[in-house]
């Protein structure tokens, strides 16, 4: 039986609480009487036969869409777009949802006699995936069928030949997407909806868009008006994407959307304690906690990183919906909320976020300081509905080693952003005004994005904008256990322990502050009343 989320009021008998710290975790004592711990719901039951569920979803789509079989005909151009390496987190065990869905779609396409099929990884401005990452996502059979004949493509937001300008929305936003997709008789979009931000019109309007189109919603103004971007109803980011999606539909771009949701079973059974409530830890859980923290303390950061990056989550599919984008996304969002919503009463002065080893942009890579900021103030801070869990002017405490380290292949422009931009200013508005254009048009970044495995030159800016709402809302940000120089460069205050951080926080929010500890991962959404 799956228990819903839970908010624990900390008292004197509460055990110390597991707090993530990058490639590791610690047990932290929280002050009694004024602290609470927010726990996610337990993993939902998964689909017993996901393949059958997929076939069923394709045969009886939602909205005004016809079944997939009826949309396919010999001689057509079919494009299957799919989510990139940033989903899910941690990467799931094989077979990935994308593989299951794509194989089911192709099975129907084969029966319908479709020859002109292309697959596009909808990576927007993310890095191109490697062969092994693609094989993991879409499976060997699909890879071997399409990669050798050049029909497995990765979206290129900088290829003038490969993009097409569809039009301009009523708010003046350019809609420019992948040409192959736009000129197909049908786009089938295969999505994994890990958080409420994903999916819907954002899939095509962002995943297959160009920089010229993306900058209309990936900017400071939009992000400051997305409260939060994890809540599509109150997100300017999503309003913009929805306008673009509707323009696409009106322009005759046909999209058959397939969205899947996962349960939040994020860690293998050997480390079950990571997603258990501390007072329910068995002897075995305690032993594996002690053994793993000991073992991790012996590892070099590099070894710890490769160990953590090798984790494959036992995530299981909980639902699959197909058909018209908005109808599908409504159902998907309902499922995501069923898995992730936790009701929380009121805000607190301080929020503690333990940052795990992974965020959407460092799969098989390094969580650099900018990603630490984005994970803490972009993702975790925004995992709320209604109001943030910390009050305006409050303090966020992040726990992460924040190493001064960058992946040279994946994040070249991040290094420059950190060295040049952040040494001048941390104000998102100034950053956007003074630096974005130069980074976005730097030929070297463009070359690395298009031919290597680098994030686009402008991507670190987006990471910073992701935290713009939090930077405006918070009175102070404290990073526990981080590289002091790196933390200061981010404009945050370093602290060595949670206790020190709470002392420092009281300078801002007064003595005896109330505290929320966000017990994530697994991912959840705090529904703050």
């Amino acid at each position, binding site marked *: 039986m799956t228990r819903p989320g839970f908010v624990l009021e900390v008292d004197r008998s509460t055990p110390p609480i597991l707090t993530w710290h990058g490639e590791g975790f610690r047990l932290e004592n929280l002050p009694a009487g004024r602290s609470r711990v927010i726990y996610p719901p337990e993993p939902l039951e998964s689909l017993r*036969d*996901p*393949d059958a569920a997929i076939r069923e979803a394709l045969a009886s789509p939602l909205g005004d869409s016809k079944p997939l079989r009826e949309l396919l005909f010999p001689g057509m151009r079919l494009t299957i777009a799919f989510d990139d390496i940033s989903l899910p987190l941690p990467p799931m065990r094989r077979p990935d949802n994308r593989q299951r869905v794509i194989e089911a779609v192709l099975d129907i396409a*084969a029966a*319908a006699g479709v020859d002109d099929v292309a697959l596009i990884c909808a990576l927007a401005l993310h890095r191109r995936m490697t062969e092994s990452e693609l094989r993991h996502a879409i499976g*060997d*059979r699909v890879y*071997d069928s*399409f990669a050798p004949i050049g029909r497995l493509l990765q979206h290129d937001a900088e290829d003038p030949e490969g993009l097409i300008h569809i039009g301009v929305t009523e708010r003046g936003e350019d809609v420019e997407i992948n040409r192959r997709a736009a000129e197909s008789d049908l786009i089938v979009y295969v999505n994994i909806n890990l958080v409420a931000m994903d999916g819907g019109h954002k899939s095509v309007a962002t995943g297959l868009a160009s920089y010229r189109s993306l900058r209309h919603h990936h900017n400071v103004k939009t992000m400051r008006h997305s409260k939060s971007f994890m809540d599509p109803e109150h997100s300017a980011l999503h309003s913009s994407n929805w306008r673009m999606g509707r323009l696409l539909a009106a322009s005759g771009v046909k999209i058959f959307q397939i969205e899947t949701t996962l349960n939040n079973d994020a860690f293998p059974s050997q480390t079950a304690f990571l997603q258990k409530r501390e007072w329910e830890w068995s002897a075995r859980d305690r032993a594996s906690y002690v053994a793993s923290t000991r073992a991790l303390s012996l590892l070099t950061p590099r070894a710890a990183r490769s160990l953590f990056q090798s984790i494959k989550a036992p995530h299981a599919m909980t639902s699959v919906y197909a058909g018209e984008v908005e109808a599908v996304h409504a159902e998907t969002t309902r499922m995501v909320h069923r898995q992730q919503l936790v009701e929380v009463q009121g805000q607190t002065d301080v929020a503690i976020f333990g940052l795990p080893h992974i965020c959407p942009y460092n799969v098989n890579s390094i969580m650099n300081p900018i990603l630490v900021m984005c994970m803490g103030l972009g993702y975790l801070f925004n995992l709320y509905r209604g109001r943030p869990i910390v009050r305006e002017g409050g303090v966020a405490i992040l726990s992460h080693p924040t190493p001064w380290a960058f992946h040279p292949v994946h994040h070249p422009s991040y290094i420059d952003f950190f060295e040049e931009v952040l040494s001048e200013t941390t104000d998102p508005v100034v950053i956007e005004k003074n630096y974005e254009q130069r980074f976005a048009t730097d030929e070297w970044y463009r070359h690395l994005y298009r031919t290597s495995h680098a994030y686009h030159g402008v991507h670190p800016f987006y990471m910073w904008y992701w935290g713009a709402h939090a930077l405006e809302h918070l009175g102070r940000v404290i990073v526990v256990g981080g590289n002091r120089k790196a933390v200061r460069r981010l404009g945050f205050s370093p602290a060595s322990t949670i206790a020190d951080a709470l002392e420092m926080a009281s300078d801002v929010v007064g003595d005896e502050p109330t505290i929320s500890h966000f017990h994530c991962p697994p991912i959840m959404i705090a529904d703050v009343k």
Partner: protein
Amino acid sequence: MSGQLPGAHSPDKRLPVTARSWAQARSGVRRRIRTASTFPLGSPPWPGTVELPPADKTLGVHYDSEWARSPFARRARTALQATVANPLLRALTSPSVRGLDRLAHFDEPAIFVANHSSHLDAPLILSVIPPRWRDELFVAGAADYFFDTHPKAVLSALALNAVPMERQRVSRTSAGRATQLLDDGWSMLIFPEGGRSPDGWGQPHRPGAAWLAVRSSVPVVPLYLEGTARILPKGSRRPKPGHVTVNFGAPILPPSDGDSRTFARTIEDAIAALADELAGDWYAARRRAAAGTTPPLSGPDATAWRRSWALGAARTGAGPKADSSRWPWNHRP
């Protein structure tokens, strides 16, 4: 030497002493050993004119292999597989296994159905099948081949957990035993061709596997093995190391209407489609399967030489393992 004309000398005899004549001398030794195992040193042949005594009720299809599923025998088998059989098979066949992801959400007893062209097939499949099924799996072995003498029967039962089964039609004894085991939650490995292929092409399927699946309503997992015939074909005694591919298919549920004949055809088509996947790419194979143009495993309906000619052509896609060593160690452009 079977093709030699009577009275003619073997061409080797006219040659000077070379490596080849040494090989010939060696094969002479082997012939002598074989001679030694014939009468009077071996058991005498039974004259056709004399009536056979009643068959031994403890051998053939009557052989009771129940002991081979005792906890002790199971542990011994696991140990034998882990220490001897699997390392040996890996070295000999360097198998690449595909399609296991199609079983990721499947967690029931199943009947594994495969094409058959070599003695290596059963042990090889046992070595690559996930433990979920391997630990409780029996192999349908030809009653007249594996269970005709006590030593062979004991070895087959112990090493493979083989259960005797008739090739031609399933008798009540063996069918009853198999359904009983399936009902008890055991999985099964069966080669519905009824024997190893003589020429590398598939033979028509016998209906037993489909019948058992329908009878016990157990899903069938089709399997296609590519390459064992090159390593140890029928009639050969010395294996030649090579590369084998095992392709697992998605489980197929037996039809609810109980039509085992149609189901047998479904299984045969599924295995053919798995073979087609290996020859080209998966999507093209799906296209052919949907169009009903999957090349049959039984090969072209033609004379023997044209069949083996076609076989050579079909195999070029999956030859021996690609040479991974590069220049400067391997001077090849």
